[in-house]
């Protein structure tokens, strides 16, 4: 090492090569550049010009200087110059580096790593061996780095692989191993450098004394503003979360940004924690809308990348999960009549709604269980419910026909269990304002003080038409939370054990009252949910497998190989250690969070050090190795020299290459998609589905199913075209052109009527298409199946196959008074191309779809009878024949279209005389 002020050279002998520079100067000056050769025909003319030949047979001066600078840069670079080199080591012997690689080291990891590398570089220059000791326990499964002397090059590769661990350090174990009996073989070692994380976890004083036996010790620490912070798990506080952070040293006021991240990685909230100058702990209230709060997955400190700056949140911090149980199911295919529809819509924004059977729901944590007229609950379930209720659950029960029919469960009563009702219920329901009653539907009375609903405004448009009645008893009044204006209870409740049982005396759907349609319903549910005590945690169950783990930098990832499951009972007491890294445990559906910061209630700084120990901070060293810069500069000069020499010899025309580069640049610009395609209309963006939907929804269109047989499809299309024309001409319905559809791919919802011609071998729709067709039928669509064979032929066989796939209701021949017979024309038969067969519709009385039959089946080949050419002339003869039959076929078509468009409107016409009479009165 040889130094001039701040500049030192690691290999100064190389500088001797600088003496060769004058020789180089001389050589370069002598050698002229090589001329280029050009054959040239008019050389005789050139001969005449050669009279005064001035040969510029030497390199220009600037080129000479360029090459000398190149040589100088190479020589200086080879001498390994270092700016601001660190002084040499104090002691001889190996360099012992002790690195804290626990969670707190991640805060300033890059400067730690830089210092590590710098120390190893210095050891390499001083030709020392290195001992590298890490103080955090190694990850399970990972090879603990053996404690021995390393060459600096090997140490460097170990350092490259070094990562901070997401758990605490164990300095005593690490140093004890080194200084203990089985420690370093070199008793009187060299110099000790301790790269600390600045925190005093696990004590230091005696360890440093042990280390001092090995040699002079330098402890590196962070300045106070760069020490790691810890974010403590938040505490629910009403509708907000109290988030607090701790720091080791109260040095000055500090503002720390805290970010709340949702499941999908989006930041949903941000707050700032303000530390006063003398505070080591500070907190902030993080208030989020309940929808967002339920989606929270973690909270983290901005700009800190440590395992303790992240808090993972599990269900303990979520809003209350609510379980829904319905006794219904028969009506499940009509959403608006479902028991749970309004409950789900009301609860989903602020709770986590789960549906299922009682046993399934109670197997997980649950805050509120809502029973919407569940009907019979068997004894085992009732026992479970009862236990859960007494442990602190909240059961909200809605009345309904089943409860009204059977208020006392005899089986449960015989088992000695109290019925799941807060009050005794009378058998039968009370109808207020029905057809046989003079009274009007009842209104809600304002809520009394003491009721949990107190303070909610009662809208005037909520009316109760039916309810179940409580049997009068002494404590009925105090059990009543809401009542009607006439004083009958609407909501009753009872405390049982630690839990509450609430009964709403109407149904959860709009059948008995308009309560579920009102905003009051949502507010009442919010109050009730807030009343619950949070999840009742169930201990026991299978061990919780590690699901996702936080690494040393506070990022979630897959768990390391050695992470072990935690028994469910022990989870609450579990601490973070190498076998149990912080992170999520359990199953994706029910995960629990293990947070490192839960153990860090307080952070202690490093404190005073024993005498004789040097103290230093990270990032002070400004040592700069100039070798790379110089060699890079030399390389740049080589490239310039190459270009210049080529240019001098004329082999490389700067101007031409500049032009080529310009052309290339232009080509790149032009070929960028934005430029090339900017002129193109974005029609391709409109997908086929959208185009189809637009075409089908701007007009009312009839549809036919494309069978794949071109002949049949032609008949279907021209038949429906003819029918649409006639309907347009004779009625107020303006139908567009018919659409051919494929139930496998096309959206069916746009079409009031689908004509489906069947033939032998018509393929049965796939399960997926059948599902779509069933949805279509359920939501009010109508399909006309035409077997085209006057009934009984092969078409019927395929219809039979269809009926297995589709949800076809029981069919009857069209009754004489069916709406189909009078929806436009009065008809008694429905001829098509053929006549005489039966036409089948859904049995009336199943009042689904307003009484409109979703399925109409016949074999009269109607499309052929309706089919017309462009000149409105029929395409096919009708059998047995006559214009009358064709006219009747068209009339059937019109009736059918009217039937599908207007529903049972015409069936109400039986009341016309009555209505007229009323109007006259």
């Amino acid at each position: 090492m040889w130094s001039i002020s701040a500049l030192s050279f690691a290999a100064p002998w190389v500088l001797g090569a600088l003496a060769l520079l004058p020789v180089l100067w001389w050589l370069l000056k002598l050698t002229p550049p090589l001329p280029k050769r050009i054959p040239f025909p008019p050389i005789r003319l050139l001969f005449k010009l050669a009279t005064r030949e001035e040969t510029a047979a030497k390199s220009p001066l600037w080129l000479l200087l360029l090459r000398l600078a190149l040589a100088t840069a190479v020589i200086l670079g080879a001498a390994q110059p270092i700016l601001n080199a660190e002084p040499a080591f104090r002691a001889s012997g190996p360099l012992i580096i002790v690195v804290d690689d626990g969670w707190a080291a991640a805060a300033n990891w890059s400067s730690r790593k830089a210092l590590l590398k710098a120390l190893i570089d210095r050891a390499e220059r001083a030709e020392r061996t290195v001992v590298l000791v890490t103080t955090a326990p190694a990850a399970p499964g990972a090879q603990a780095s053996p404690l021995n002397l390393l060459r600096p090059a090997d140490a460097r590769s170990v350092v490259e692989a070094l990562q901070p661990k997401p758990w605490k350090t164990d300095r005593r174990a690490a140093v004890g191993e080194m200084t203990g009996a089985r420690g370093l073989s070199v008793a009187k070692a060299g110099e000790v450098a301790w790269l600390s994380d600045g925190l005093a976890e696990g004590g230091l004083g005696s360890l440093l004394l042990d280390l001092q036996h090995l040699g002079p010790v330098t402890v590196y620490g962070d300045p106070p503003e760069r020490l790691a912070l810890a974010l403590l798990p938040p505490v629910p506080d009403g509708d907000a979360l109290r988030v607090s952070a701790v720091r080791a040293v109260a040095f000055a006021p500090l503002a720390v940004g805290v970010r709340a991240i949702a499941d999908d990685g989006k930041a949903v909230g941000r707050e700032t924690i303000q530390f006063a100058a003398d505070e080591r702990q500070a907190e902030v209230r993080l208030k989020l809308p309940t929808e967002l709060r339920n989606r929270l997955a973690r909270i983290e400190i901005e700009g800190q990348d440590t395992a303790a700056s992240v808090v993972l949140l599990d269900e303990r911090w979520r809003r209350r999960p609510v379980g829904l149980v319905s006794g219904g199911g028969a009506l499940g295919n009509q959403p608006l009549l479902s028991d749970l529809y309004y409950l789900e819509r009301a609860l989903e924004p602020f709770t986590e709604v789960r549906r299922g059977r009682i046993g399934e729901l109670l197997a997980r944590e649950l805050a509120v269980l809502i029973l919407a007229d569940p009907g019979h609950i068997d004894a085992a379930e009732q026992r479970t419910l009862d236990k859960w209720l007494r442990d602190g659950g909240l059961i909200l029960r809605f009345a309904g026909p089943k409860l009204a029919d059977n208020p006392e469960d005899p089986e449960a009563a015989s088992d000695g269990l109290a019925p799941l009702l807060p009050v005794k219920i009378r058998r039968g329901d009370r109808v207020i304002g029905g057809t046989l009653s003079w009274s009007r539907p009842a209104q809600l009375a304002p809520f009394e003080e003491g009721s949990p609903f107190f303070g909610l405004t009662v809208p005037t448009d909520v009316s109760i038409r039916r309810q179940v009645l409580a049997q009068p008893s002494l404590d009925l009044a105090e059990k009543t939370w809401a009542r009607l204006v006439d004083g009958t209870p609407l909501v009753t409740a009872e405390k049982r054990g630690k839990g509450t049982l609430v009964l709403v005396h109407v149904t959860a759907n709009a059948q008995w009252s308009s309560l579920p349609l009102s905003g009051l319903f949502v507010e009442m549910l919010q109050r009730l949910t807030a009343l619950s005590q949070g999840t009742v945690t169930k201990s026991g169950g299978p061990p919780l497998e590690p699901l996702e783990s936080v690494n040393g930098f506070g990022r979630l990832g897959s768990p390391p190989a050695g992470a072990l499951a935690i028994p469910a009972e022990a989870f609450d007491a579990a601490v973070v250690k190498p076998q149990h890294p912080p992170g999520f445990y359990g199953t994706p559906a029910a995960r629990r969070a293990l947070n490192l910061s839960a153990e860090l209630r307080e952070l202690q700084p490093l404190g005073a050090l024993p005498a004789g120990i040097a103290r230093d901070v990270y990032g002070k060293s400004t040592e700069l190795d100039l070798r790379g810069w110089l060699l890079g500069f030399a390389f740049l000069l080589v490239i310039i020299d190459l270009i210049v020499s080529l240019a001098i010899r004329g082999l490389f025309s700067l101007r031409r290459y500049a032009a080529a580069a310009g052309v290339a640049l232009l080509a790149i610009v032009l070929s960028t998609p934005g430029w090339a395609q900017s002129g193109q209309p974005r029609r391709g963006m409109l997908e086929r589905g959208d185009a189809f939907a637009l075409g089908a929804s701007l007009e009312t269109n009839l549809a036919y199913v494309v069978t794949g047989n071109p002949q049949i499809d032609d008949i279907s299309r021209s038949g429906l075209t003819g029918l649409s024309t006639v309907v347009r001409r004779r009625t107020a319905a303006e139908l567009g052109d018919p659409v051919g559809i494929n139930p496998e791919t096309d959206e069916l919802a746009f079409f009031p009527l689908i004509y489906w011609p069947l033939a032998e071998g018509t393929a049965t729709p796939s399960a997926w298409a059948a599902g779509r067709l069933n949805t279509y039928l359920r939501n009010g669509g109508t399909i006309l199946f035409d077997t085209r064979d006057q009934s009984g032929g092969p078409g019927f066989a395929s219809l039979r196959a269809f009926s297995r796939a589709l949800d076809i209701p029981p069919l009857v021949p069209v009754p004489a008074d069916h709406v189909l017979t009078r929806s436009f024309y009065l008809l008694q038969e429905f001829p098509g191309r053929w006549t005489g067969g039966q036409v089948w519709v859904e049995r009336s009385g199943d009042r689904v779809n307003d009484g409109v039959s979703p399925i109409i089946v016949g074999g009269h080949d109607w499309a052929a009878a309706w089919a017309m050419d462009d000149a409105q002339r029929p395409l096919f003869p009708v059998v047995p024949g006559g214009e009358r039959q064709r006219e009747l076929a068209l009339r059937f078509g019109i009736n059918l279209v009217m039937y599908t468009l207007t529903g049972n409107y015409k069936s109400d016409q039986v009341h016309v005389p009555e209505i007229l009479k009323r109007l006259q009165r």
Partner: protein
Amino acid sequence: MDANRGDLHHKAEELAAALPPLLVAAERVAMTVSQGVHGRRRVGQGETFWQFRRYEPGDSTQRIDWRQSAKSDRVYIRETEWEAAQSVWLWRDASPSMHYQSAAALPSKLGRANLLLLALTVLLVRGGERVAMLGTGVPPSASRAALIRIARGLENGRAAETDDAPSLPGFEPLPRYGRLVLFGDFLSPLDEVRTAVAAFANRGVRGHLIQVFDPAEETLPFAGRVRFDGMEREGEILFGRVETVRERYRGELAAHRSALAEIVRAAGWTGSVHHTDRSPVAALLELYLALSEVWDR
């Protein structure tokens, strides 16, 4: 019969194969020019209809066009356009210096000379003139076979790459009033050029000189340190900085060219300069008009 047909087929194949690409290119160039040029535009011997004229006493009754005369009361005579065949000898410089091309995109001087020569041949043959290559000894002919022969000769000459081809045409006793068209760069010493031209001019042969030049030869666009090689063993010369002599080179070239023009003028010939980066059509048109003028005079 079959053998005859086979023979015919064979000949046709041979004929088609013989049509060299150069000839195709030349025909294309010639086509462009011929559309802009018309015939002799005077009454004379020929086959093309020129005009009807009133019959005058002394005219041959054989020349009366009966069909035309029957249309009216007068008697008409059909006159044809004068078509007199000339003999033209062609020559182009095939020496190594003609192989020069300064850029890959440009044709070599020889290539351009060949194209021009053959296109001129096409035009001449189409006009009924008789054509021959100088130095081959073949008598002039106006047949298409002659055209193909010349085209082949040019192709073969190009393939042979003769290093010792002369830079100037050797003398050959041509008939009086024959026409001679010479293509070349005419960079030889002026005395040699003068001798060669005078030899023909003294026989009363009139001619036209087309100096085919590469643009680089015109402008000397090189820079830096360059060693120039002669292409016909003239030697070599080194310039430290070519750009300094560029102006003087142009002066030398202009002097050479004016001396050449003086030689041509003295012989009563005409001359023109063509650059390989220009369109051959323009040169051909100019050349053709020059030849027509010679005839019209």
